[in-house]
């Protein structure tokens, strides 16, 4: 099967600066792919190259096998996108905006436009000027615009930007629904992992123009239990310094001190042994907490906390 979208060693150089340093991955139909990275990592640049808004320095983007470079019309015919904000003509109504874009792709009927409006639930305000729309309504109109021509790939750049929690939840539900019902590949970029984690099947993490990890979301939460040292353990104990020393000498664990708390990572099986050691050496233990390493923690570990704004 041909991938819905495939990036082949995609590179972008502006001036002497290499902004995107060779991205390669592919996304299948019906899959929701999260594209995560701190601001300035190159997410938007990559998306702009995917849809042909920016020229590609090296490598290629293929949509259903068609290159965006050499076969632009054919490739872009299968893409619906919102790049950055969902900007529409403010002096036109929602309906006029959609019809405007509908005229640009052959074969979009009025019925299809109505269908899409129904899908995003904009029936009521569709005859109003877009200038009066709230950000959430514009975001929905943006999605409607992107779905008009039944694309195989839907690209949403920061779709949760500026939305309130209710709006974010709404968008999340739409995207799941669209991926399921219209069987499209959805690519969502965000700098906030927590916002899109729940709607993605897979997540790619980009930093400084490089893809540093691709992670399946469900796999992470369940399957990672088998990995070693993935439990985050926190122990409140006194004296703290002695406890840390003991962990280091007896178990080769580098624990971090945080007031009276020490935290470190360990496999679940090793925890009783650790506590036994501490108790034997007259360390008073007040509480022990164990939490799973979330995707977010992993994300922070990968890109480094301080690089996030």
């Amino acid at each position, binding site marked *: 099967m041909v991938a819905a979208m495939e990036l082949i060693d995609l590179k972008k150089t502006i001036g002497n600066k290499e902004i995107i340093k060779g991205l390669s991955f592919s996304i299948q139909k019906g899959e929701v792919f999260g594209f995560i990275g701190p601001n300035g990592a190159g997410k938007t640049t990559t998306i702009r190259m995917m849809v*042909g808004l920016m020229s590609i320095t090296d490598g290629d983007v293929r949509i259903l096998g068609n290159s965006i470079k050499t076969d632009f019309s054919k490739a872009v015919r299968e893409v619906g996108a919102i790049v950055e904000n969902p900007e529409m003509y403010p002096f*036109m109504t929602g309906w006029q905006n959609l019809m405007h874009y509908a*005229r*640009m*792709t052959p074969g979009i009927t009025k019925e299809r436009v109505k269908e899409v409006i129904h899908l995003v639930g904009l029936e009521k305000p569709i005859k109003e000027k877009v200038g009066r729309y709230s950000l959430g309504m514009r975001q929905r109109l943006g999605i409607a615009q992107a779905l008009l021509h039944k694309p195989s790939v839907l690209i949403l750049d920061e779709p949760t930007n500026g939305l309130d929690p209710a709006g974010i939840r709404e968008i999340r539900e739409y995207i799941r629904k669209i991926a399921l019902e219209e069987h499209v590949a959805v690519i969502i970029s965000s700098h906030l992992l927590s916002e899109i984690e729940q709607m993605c099947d897979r997540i790619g993490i980009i930093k400084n123009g490089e893809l540093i990890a691709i992670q399946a979301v469900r796999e992470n939460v369940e399957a990672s239990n088998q990995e070693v040292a993935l439990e985050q353990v926190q122990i409140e104990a006194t004296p703290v310094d002695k406890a840390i020393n003991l962990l280091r000498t007896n178990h080769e664990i580098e624990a971090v001190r945080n007031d009276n708390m020490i935290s470190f990572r360990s496999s679940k099986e090793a925890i009783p042994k650790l506590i036994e050691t501490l108790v034997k050496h007259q360390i008073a233990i007040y509480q022990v907490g164990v939490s799973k390493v979330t995707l977010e923690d992993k994300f922070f570990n990968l890109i480094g906390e301080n690089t996030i704004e």
Partner: protein
Amino acid sequence: MSRFFKLVFNEQFKIYIRKSTWIMYIILAGLIIGNAALTNSFDEPNKYTDDNWREVLEEENKLLQQDNDTYTQEMKENDQEVTEDDSYLQFNMTEIEKNNYYLENDIQPHSYGAWQFVLDNAMLLSVVSLLTIIIAAGIVANEFRWGTIKLLLIRPISRSVVLLSKYVSVLLFALFTLIFVYVVSLLVGGVFFGFEGINPSIVIEKNSAFTDVSMVSEVFSAYGYSIVNLVMMTTFAFMISVVFRNSALAIGVAIFLMMSGNTIVAFFSDRDWAKYILFANTDLKQYASGTPWIEGMTLSFSITVLLVYYIIFMAISWIVFKKRDVAGH
């Protein structure tokens, strides 16, 4: 083809749905009506209609001659040189010659009417140019300002075709506005002054002699000659709009050049390369009336220069638009 038509329709839709466009048309209509009211209150439109039109013309000539004599005398009293081609004298002399032409050929001058009014309103074409420049300056730059350019360029249509649809739309806007000026002038003229007939004739100066020509053809040639300047300045504004994505800059530069074009040519008129300046060539009427601005210029020379400028403007617009990375604001 029908797809290109749809693109042009989209662009026209975006032009005409905005209130600012309609304000332009209201201003134009206001200018035409104001002009009619002004003409009506200054002239006596029906002074030649009676049988004594010959006497009226002779009386006019006498007054003009007197006016010239007193002017010459006054100038002499103030110790100022008066030459034959003093503009004040020239203007009166032209009127006298024109009246003589009517008398010699026994043509009764028409009363002032709708056609004559349409012809007089050819001066409004500089306003049409101005409005078209405003549209041309905005049609690409605004898409960037609104951010809608991103959604426009991710359709299965090449950038060249998108740009062409925009350029054609600007020219269509100019055409519609010209027709608007023409029709409204004819209607307002008809209401204020009445019609002179289906195709009346008019006496004009051509190659320093007077001839009798059809009014309608004169109207079309007056409008036609202005279109050259309109198209050139519009294309220029369009180019600036594409290159700098800033409509205010495009409007400013294009209007400044349009206003100061003649001054620029006059300023450099003694240089060899003056005849290659765009504005020395935009007024093709100079060849019809006989005397080109700069010696050695011919109609085919001007057309060649205009074409070269036109191709340069278009090529820059297209290359820049095709190559541009559409990045953030």
